[in-house]
C-alpha cells in the first residue's frame, strides 16, 4: 500500500471540511437563528482543511525537506492532483475569509461565500477523482467513487458540525430538523452506493474481485462490517431515524412541544450518531486505500 493512513486521514479531512462549509452555508439560509451551528461549521472548516494539508506535506517527504518545491504543484494541468491543488487553494481562501468574518462578527460577502460553495463541492469531488482516474487499481477506477466521496463528505461535514455544535448549544442541535433529515438520506444513499460499487466492480476483473473480497470476506472483513457498516452507517441510520420519529411524536403533544421549546432533552443521541459517522467516514477512506489491488501485469 503506497498511500496509507496519512493519506486516508487527508481524504477524510478534506471531505469533512468541505462538508462542514456546505452545512454552515445551508444552515445560514434555512435557519438564520441557529447561530451556533453556522458559526461552528464556518470555523471548523478551514481548521480541518489546514490539518489535512499539514498531513499531506508530512507525507510528501521530498517536499517536506525542500518546501519551495510545492510551487511546482501548480504546473501540470493533466494531473488531477494539480487541479485539486487549485480547488483547495480557492476553497481554503474562501473558507478562511468566511471564518474570519464570522469571528469579527462582520457581514460575509455573498460572492465569496458562493465561490466557497462551488470550490467546496469541487474539493469533495476531487478527492474521489484523485484515485478514481488510476486505471491500475480497478477498485478505484469507477465513476461511482467520486459520487460516494461527495455523499460521504456531506455526511461527515454535517456530523462534524453537529458534534461540535452540541457542546455549545443543545437547543439548536434539536432545532435544525431538516439537517437531520438530509443526513439520514445521505447515510442511506451511502449504503446503496457502497453496495452498488462493490457489486458491479467485483464483476469487472480479477483484481477488482480480489479487492472486494478482501473487504467483505477477507483481511479487512471486521473493519468493513463492524467499523464501516455497523458503526459508521447502520447505527447512525437507526439513531437518526429514532430521533426524527421522536421529534415528530413530540410535535403532536402539548407536553412534547414544551420539552422541545425548553430544549432540555439530552444530546447523548447526537453525540453517538455524529461520532460514529465520523469514524465511518475515516474507515471508508482507509479501507478503499488499503484494499487497493493493482491489476496483475505478468
Amino acid at each position, binding site marked *: 500500500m*503506497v*498511500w496509507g493512513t496519512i493519506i486516508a486521514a487527508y481524504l477524510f479531512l478534506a471531505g469533512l471540511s468541505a462538508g462542514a462549509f456546505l452545512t454552515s452555508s445551508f444552515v445560514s439560509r434555512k435557519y438564520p437563528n441557529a447561530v451556533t451551528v453556522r458559526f461552528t461549521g464556518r470555523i471548523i472548516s478551514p481548521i480541518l482543511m489546514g490539518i489535512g494539508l499539514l498531513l*499531506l506535506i508530512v*507525507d*510528501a*517527504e*521530498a*517536499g*517536506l*525537506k*525542500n518546501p519551495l*518545491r*510545492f510551487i*511546482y*504543484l501548480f*504546473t*501540470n494541468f*493533466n*494531473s*488531477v*492532483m*494539480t487541479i485539486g*491543488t487549485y480547488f483547495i487553494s480557492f476553497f481554503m481562501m474562501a473558507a478562511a475569509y468566511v471564518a474570519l468574518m464570522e469571528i469579527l462578527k462582520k457581514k460575509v460577502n455573498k460572492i465569496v461565500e458562493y465561490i466557497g460553495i462551488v470550490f467546496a463541492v469541487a474539493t469533495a469531488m476531487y478527492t474521489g477523482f484523485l*484515485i478514481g*482516474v*488510476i*486505471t*491500475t*487499481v480497478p477498485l478505484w477506477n469507477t465513476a461511482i467513487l467520486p459520487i460516494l466521496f461527495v455523499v460521504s463528505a456531506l455526511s461527515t461535514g454535517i456530523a462534524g458540525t453537529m458534534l461540535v455544535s452540541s457542546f455549545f448549544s443543545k437547543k439548536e442541535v434539536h432545532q435544525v430538523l431538516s439537517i437531520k433529515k438530509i443526513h439520514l438520506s445521505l447515510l442511506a444513499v451511502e449504503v446503496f452506493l457502497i453496495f452498488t460499487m462493490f457489486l458491479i466492480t467485483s464483476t469487472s476483473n480479477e483484481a477488482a474481485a480480489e479487492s472486494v473480497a478482501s473487504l467483505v470476506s477477507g483481511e479487512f472483513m471486521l473493519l468493513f462490517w463492524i467499523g464501516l457498516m455497523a458503526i459508521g452507517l447502520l447505527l447512525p441510520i437507526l439513531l437518526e431515524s429514532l430521533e426524527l420519529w421522536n421529534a415528530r411524536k413530540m410535535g403532536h403533544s402539548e407536553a412534547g412541544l414544551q420539552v422541545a421549546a425548553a430544549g432540555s432533552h439530552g444530546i447523548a443521541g447526537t453525540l453517538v450518531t455524529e461520532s460514529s459517522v465520523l469514524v465511518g467516514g475515516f474507515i471508508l477512506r482507509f479501507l478503499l486505500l488499503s484494499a487497493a489491488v*493493482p*491489476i496483475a*501485469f*505478468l
Partner: protein
Amino acid sequence: MARFGMMIDTRKCVGCYACRVSCQMQNELPVEVSYIKFYEKETGIFPNVKNEIIPVQCQHCEDAPCESVCPTKATYTTEDGIVLVDAEKCIGCKYCMVACPYQARTQDHLTGVVEKCRFCADLVAEGKQPACVTTCISNARVFGDLDDPNSDVSKAIIKHNAHPLRPDLGKSKIYYVR
C-alpha cells in the same frame, strides 16, 4: 532522435540478479533499494508446466501514466523516449507510484524523491549500453533504437516475436520473449 527500448528474453534469464546488482552500483543505490524486481510465474497444467523468471523495471511507456499524474512535472520523457525523474522537482507525493501499472517505482527514504530505472541515460548519451545489458551473463537483454529497423533490438524483437508485458496497459518500450 532515437526511441530507446529493450528486449528481455526470459527463456535465457537464469535469475542470477547480476543486472540488479550492476544497476545498484551504477545508480549508487543502497542494498535494499533496486530498480529491477524479479517475478516468478508458473504456467501450464501438470505435467506440461513452465516456470518463468521475469525481471521487471520501468517500461518507459509512451504517454506514461506516471508522467501525466505527476503534479510537479518532475517526471518527464526525453527526446530519446527515456522516462526520467527530475529529483529537484519531485515532492515525494507518490502519485506516480500509485499510477505505475508495473510497480516499477521506489522512494528514496533519504531524500524522499521517487526514483526508478533510467535506462542509464548518462551511459546511453555516451553511446554506451545500460549497465543491466552489459552485465547480463546470458545476453538475455538487448538494448537499442526501436525506430531503427536495423538496430540489434529491432531485429531481435522480430526474430523472437517479443511483446510488451501488457500492451493493453499502455505502449511500453520493453519487449519480452516468454
